[in-house]
């Protein structure tokens, strides 16, 4: 069984996210023996795959090997019913030796009692020390005791008083006694006998049977002493017989038919010669039948309880769906993926040649199910995305609009250039002031810089202008910081000119939407668009449309909370095991790792190439009215894809933050996409069923 050290705070150095994922795959593929399956307390609604369970196949050699006791516990041929160390056995007359006594039940139903002297066990656990005294070693081997319970007819139990050790002697059918086993005082003998009784059932039983005490524990039967003269009233002496139960009815209902032939053949020839029990056989039958009846009853209860809880879970899931997830998908448009190809060059040309309604449907369907592929996918994206985003009507030719966009764009740049120049002048001034202060190095309390003094302006127009400049200035600083560090690892942005393009588009957007202003993350959304279009004016227009979608999820708006809550409900329904990891924490905290996912529609989580693919599907899903929130399903797929890692390591929310941050740009995007589409389809089916 592979055990990973949890990578929570203090032990993150132990395993990287990738190692964890690999480990989970290894476990799944069964390279390690041991079981990773956990029983889900709330089964999911058919959509989830269960953890692959690898049955423990610890095939151990049952013979006395290096670790005798261990082998008793881990034998495939027998089950250990009872084990006790330091049980004394008289060896040669008065000589006592301590050893390990064990009661094992073999798969064929036979019980055997074994006793191995301590010396042998110690010697065999330290093989190197056993060489010198080989003779003594064989001597010990001779002393091991092995009693087959099927040969035994009497067990004598002798105890002086409550505080003294109990002696057990076994007598076989030939009347031969075994050496007495001395169990320490206390409940050991009772424990042994009750294990034995359990082991003997159903074919054999103890006579008299053990009694059940007031607190359901087993006690020795209280029998009237035959002898009237009791020299020591505290002395306990019992003789148990091992007798065959006369016949077993399969169920208590059949009790009326006591003549039914016993399906069980006699266990052993020796048993035939057993003396008759003083108890009435019918009485014993009824005891056995009663026990079996009770067992059946309990099974019936358990089956009913499981069925009930299964049903309850299902109903709860449906309630979650009804109250939270009903509007996440549209069931009117269940679009199949039958014989559908990706959008390629040929198909796109067809669409542009004949921009019919059917073609548009087909285009969206293909994007949703297969995406845009081909050697010149970038070129197709450049042309198709404005349609996908709804910037152009399907049957519209873009040329006229493009020209207009470009003209307007450059005019706007002219306008903000003036503001920018003013901002730069003030920055320079502020810097010089700061340097001057540093040179003089006066130790003074902080005061506002001169240019920020709001008392200066006298007329309202001036005041407006001041406001405008200071607002624009604050935004420019933020944009500058983020443009400078936007995906510098990408070839495209290692080119300074492209960074300048990015900056210009961002400035223009913020100038247009100064009230909204710049928020971190906008650059990340803008960058892939610029890479695809390589046209600033077109990028700006598409970005504006994209921001209409994304704006709601930005800070101080309710969209993000809604996303996270929906994601939480989806996890609850689809993967209850993962849900159990996050159920007790505030959702915003528990799912904080998903904040960046939804803010940027996974742009930071995926490579550029994958981001394109995911964005297209998100947009197509919306256009097809399948769902406006495909991103949430993609998030769900991202989580359920790492089910094994999350569950095996019992991640808390900080572990998840770390894990998913480390997994950024390492996801298998096609796999996640198809899993997300499956999740959508499943929810559609469930919702349809509900309606």
């Amino acid at each position, binding site marked *: 069984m592979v055990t990973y050290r949890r990578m929570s705070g203090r032990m993150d150095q132990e395993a990287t996210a990738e190692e964890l994922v690999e480990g989970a795959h290894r476990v799944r593929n069964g390279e390690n023996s041991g079981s990773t399956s956990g029983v889900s307390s709330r089964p999911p609604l058919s959509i989830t795959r269960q953890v692959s369970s690898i049955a423990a196949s610890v095939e151990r050699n049952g013979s006395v090997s290096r670790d005798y006791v261990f082998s008793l516990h881990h034998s495939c041929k027998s089950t250990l019913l009872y084990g006790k160390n330091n049980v004394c056995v008289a060896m040669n007359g008065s000589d006592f030796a301590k050893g390990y006594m064990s009661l094992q039940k073999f798969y064929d139903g036979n019980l055997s009692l074994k006793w191995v002297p301590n010396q042998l066990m110690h010697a065999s656990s330290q093989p190197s020390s056993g060489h010198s005294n080989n003779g003594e070693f064989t001597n010990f081997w001779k002393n091991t005791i092995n009693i087959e319970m099927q040969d035994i007819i009497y067990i004598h139990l002798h105890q002086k008083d409550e505080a003294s050790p109990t002696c057990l002697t076994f007598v076989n059918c030939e009347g031969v006694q075994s050496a007495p086993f001395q169990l320490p005082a206390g409940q050991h003998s009772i424990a042994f006998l009750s294990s034995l009784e359990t082991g003997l059932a159903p074919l054999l039983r103890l006579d008299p049977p053990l009694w059940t005490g007031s607190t359901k524990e087993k006690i020795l039967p209280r029998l009237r002493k035959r002898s009237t003269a009791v020299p020591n009233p505290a002395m306990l002496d019992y003789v148990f017989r091992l007798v065959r139960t006369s016949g077993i009815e399969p169920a208590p209902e059949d009790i009326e038919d006591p003549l039914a032939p016993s399906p069980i053949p006699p266990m052993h020839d020796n048993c035939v010669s057993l003396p008759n029990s003083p108890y009435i056989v019918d009485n014993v039958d009824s005891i056995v039948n009663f026990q079996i009846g009770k067992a059946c009853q309990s099974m019936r209860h358990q089956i009913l309880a499981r069925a009930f809880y299964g049903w309850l879970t299902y109903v709860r899931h449906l309630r979650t769906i009804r109250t939270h997830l009903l509007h996440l998908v549209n069931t009117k448009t269940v679009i199949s993926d039958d014989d559908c190809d990706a959008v390629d060059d040929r198909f796109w040309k067809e669409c542009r040649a004949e921009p019919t309604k059917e073609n548009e449907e087909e285009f969206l369907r293909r994007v949703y199910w297969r995406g845009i592929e081909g050697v010149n996918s970038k070129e197709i994206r450049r042309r198709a995305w404005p349609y996908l985003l709804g910037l152009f009507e399907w049957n519209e030719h873009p040329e006229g609009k493009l020209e207009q966009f470009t003209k307007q764009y450059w005019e706007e740049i002219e306008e903000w250039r003036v503001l920018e120049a003013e901002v730069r002048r003030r920055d320079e001034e502020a810097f010089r002031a700061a340097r001057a202060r540093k040179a003089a190095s006066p130790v003074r309390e902080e005061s506002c810089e001169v240019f920020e003094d709001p008392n200066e302006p006298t007329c309202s127009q001036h005041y407006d202008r001041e406001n405008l400049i200071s607002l624009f200035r604050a935004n420019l600083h933020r944009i500058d910081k*983020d443009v400078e560090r936007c995906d510098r690892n990408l070839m495209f942005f290692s080119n300074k000119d492209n960074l300048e393009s990015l900056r210009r588009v961002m400035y223009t957007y913020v100038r247009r939407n100064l009230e909204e202003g710049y928020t971190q993350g906008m650059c*990340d959304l803008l960058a892939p668009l610029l890479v695809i279009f390589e046209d600033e004016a077109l990028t700006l227009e598409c970005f504006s449309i994209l921001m209409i979608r994304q704006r709601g999820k930005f800070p101080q708006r309710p969209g993000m909370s809604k996303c996270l809550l929906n994601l939480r409900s989806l996890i609850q329904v689809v993967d209850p095991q993962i849900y159990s990891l996050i159920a007790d924490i505030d959702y915003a905290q528990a799912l904080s790792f998903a904040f960046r996912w939804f*803010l940027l529609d996974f742009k930071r989580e995926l490579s550029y190439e994958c981001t394109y693919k995911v964005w297209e599907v998100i947009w197509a899903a919306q256009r097809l009215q399948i769902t406006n929130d495909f991103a949430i399903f993609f998030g769900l797929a991202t989580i359920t894809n790492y089910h094994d890692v999350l569950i095996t390591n019992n991640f808390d929310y900080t572990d998840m933050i770390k894990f998913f941050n480390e997994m950024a740009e390492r996801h298998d995007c096609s796999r996640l996409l198809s899993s997300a589409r499956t999740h959508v389809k499943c929810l559609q089916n469930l919702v349809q069923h509900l309606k």
Partner: protein
Amino acid sequence: MSGTRKKALLKVIILGDSGVGKTSLMNQYVNRRFSNQYKATIGADFLTRDVNIDDRTVTLQIWDTAGQERFQSLGVAFYRGADCCVLAFDVTNAASFKSLDSWRDEFLIQASPRDPDHFPFVLLGNKVDLESQRAVSSKRAQSWCQTKGNIPYYEVSAKEALNVEAAFLAIARDALARESQETNDFPEFPDQIRLNPNQQNQQNSGCNC
């Protein structure tokens, strides 16, 4: 102290304006490397590093946050349970220095530590390698620290790995010292409430209506 061998986890939050180098500082301290390819932090992330202080292994869990003030409503969850707050500014950017007050206030309001007057803060002035562009003098930063209850101040450079190690070690020490002091000041089981018997009697006698 009895638990000297206990492994402690100290939660450290780095706050400061966007672009002052919070991510760089954290990475320099934990991974001992600098990259000019870090992106703007969105959401939150953390790294951990074990340090030995006076025979004790302490794990620093350093949380990196987004620098834009608009994101701060999200940070609240991460502020809770912080043992130390690192305020960072860029010595070449006077505005980032001026924001320190609001960062500090914001933290105290959101994290609401038990003893806000003595909560361990540390101030880091980053990018001292850019001396020619410096806009905030060391003295100015130090005097600000004095007015805030003698916050320790370190001039560091994440790029040149200057003073970063020392600063974080001091942070750990400070937080640890604070922690053990808190254990004394605020024991697990609060003192029993002692009602003044005289006062009680007075109240009883006064209420005869």
